[in-house]
């Protein structure tokens, strides 16, 4: 082993120990999520099948966060094809990513699907698509542009709102046509709450 290759693992260990002992929120991370929240010391990565539960230990019922959430899945009795969109299908737990328009998404929406770092989503029926979510919508005093479903307000021919980009069967705000249904509003405030899996009760 050369001196350089000997140094690398030592440096890696030293860095991990230093970050755990004196944690700082890296610029690339969501300031509300420090490493240690999810990465235990002797179990650095949660098992794949526990990732959703890990999020829900805080954001689910009985958890300590006030930002409550439930996974996006069929409502009981739904006639839609079965689907189940988990936390990390939409959210990147590490950072708010730049979107394809050059802006920065909020609420950790959009994941790095192709290594470019640009916010995109795998969709159930439309392949990989761009997602833009820069505003929480007009009900909370934010712009309608680039909110949940702005019905292509920027007229670039792409329905890339966080609600629109996957939908193809819902009748309103699909990813291929305009819709006048509460366009630009805050979908999750009263009707399609994250706590009900976005299903309208």
């Amino acid at each position: 082993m050369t001196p350089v290759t000997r140094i690398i693992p030592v440096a890696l260990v030293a860095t991990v120990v230093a970050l755990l002992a004196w944690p700082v929120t890296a610029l690339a991370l969501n300031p509300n999520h420090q490493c240690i929240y999810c990465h235990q010391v002797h179990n650095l990565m949660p098992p794949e099948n526990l990732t959703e539960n890990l999020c829900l230990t805080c954001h689910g019922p009985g958890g300590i966060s006030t930002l409550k959430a439930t996974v996006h899945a069929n409502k009981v009795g739904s006639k839609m094809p079965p689907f189940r969109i988990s936390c990390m299908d939409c959210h990147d737990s590490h950072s708010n990513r730049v979107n394809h328009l050059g802006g920065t998404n909020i609420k950790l929406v959009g994941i790095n699907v192709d290594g470019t770092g640009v916010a995109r989503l795998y969709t159930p029926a439309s392949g990989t698509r761009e997602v833009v979510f820069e505003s929480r919508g007009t009900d909370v005093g934010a712009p309608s542009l680039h909110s949940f479903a702005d019905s292509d307000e920027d007229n670039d021919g792409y329905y890339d709102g966080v609600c629109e980009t996957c939908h193809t069967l819902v009748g309103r705000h699909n990813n291929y046509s305009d819709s006048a249904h509460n366009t630009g509003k805050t979908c999750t405030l009263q009707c399609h709450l994250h706590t009900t899996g976005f299903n309208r009760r």
Partner: protein
Amino acid sequence: MIPVLSRRLGSRRRYPVCALAVLLCCAAMPANAAQSPVVPATVQAPVRIAAMPGDRLLVSDNTLQAIIVIDRKTLSVERTIPVGGRPVAVVWAEGRIFVGNETLGQVQIYSPDGRLTGNFGAPGSIGLPNALAYDDQTYEVLVLDALEKVVKVFTIEGQFLRLLTQPGALANPTAMSFDRTARRVLVSDFGTLAGSIFSRPKPVVHQLDLAGTEVAKIDGTGTGTFVRPQGLALDAAGRLYVVDSYDSRIYVFDAAGAPLGNLGGFGGDPGQLSLPLDILDSPKDKTLYVTDHGNGRIAAFPEWVTP
């Protein structure tokens, strides 16, 4: 993407099959279905569980936004009580059902037949009513507010009396149980998530006296035990059961706080759990009932038996 989605949907396809198998199993042996999860048909997202006289179980269901009354012997749903929001905590006290309603931010009081008869404070006054306990000697209701991170004490009529714990005493409390024998309050606490791992408070179960003084505690991470502790239960032998929502296990401790072992583990098969949130010991059948939130069912395990 297609392989990823297919894999995900494939794994989910197992759940209906498992649920059907479990239903058939339960139909064959409806009572004392120890170690076989039980699936009351209308439970979707169970959170907390409490005992009710007449061999009944009370379960709060976050998705149904209701309290479900279950006959423990037949495992059938006797009544569903809509509560107008997402219920978390539930406890039975003096002929009434007390419900911590997270949406409304208050504690509601229901009659056994489901009529709303009162509430604690104004809406929003209890930010996250995560747990309730009842002291039947003092007729006091204890409310754990996970937002303010304190335990509040009320009369059974809803009059605020005092704080059992002062702000800052608990780091991130989540659930609570009352030990009637020792007259202690047990509080599970995530610990402090931020800060150095060498100095920050660990996950812990606090044991408090009725003055709020900590008389004992059980540490989690670091002794190879729980990480995100939720519901707590004690059996007649004084063993403490701690539900860990992180790794879907039930950690068992003896009366002195020494670890004995664990039950469960992540999964959807019988004997496995996914995001369990609460536990209730039933001395009659020596069975532990667990709200298996992620699997949408109530799971049953036999009490711990020392090998």
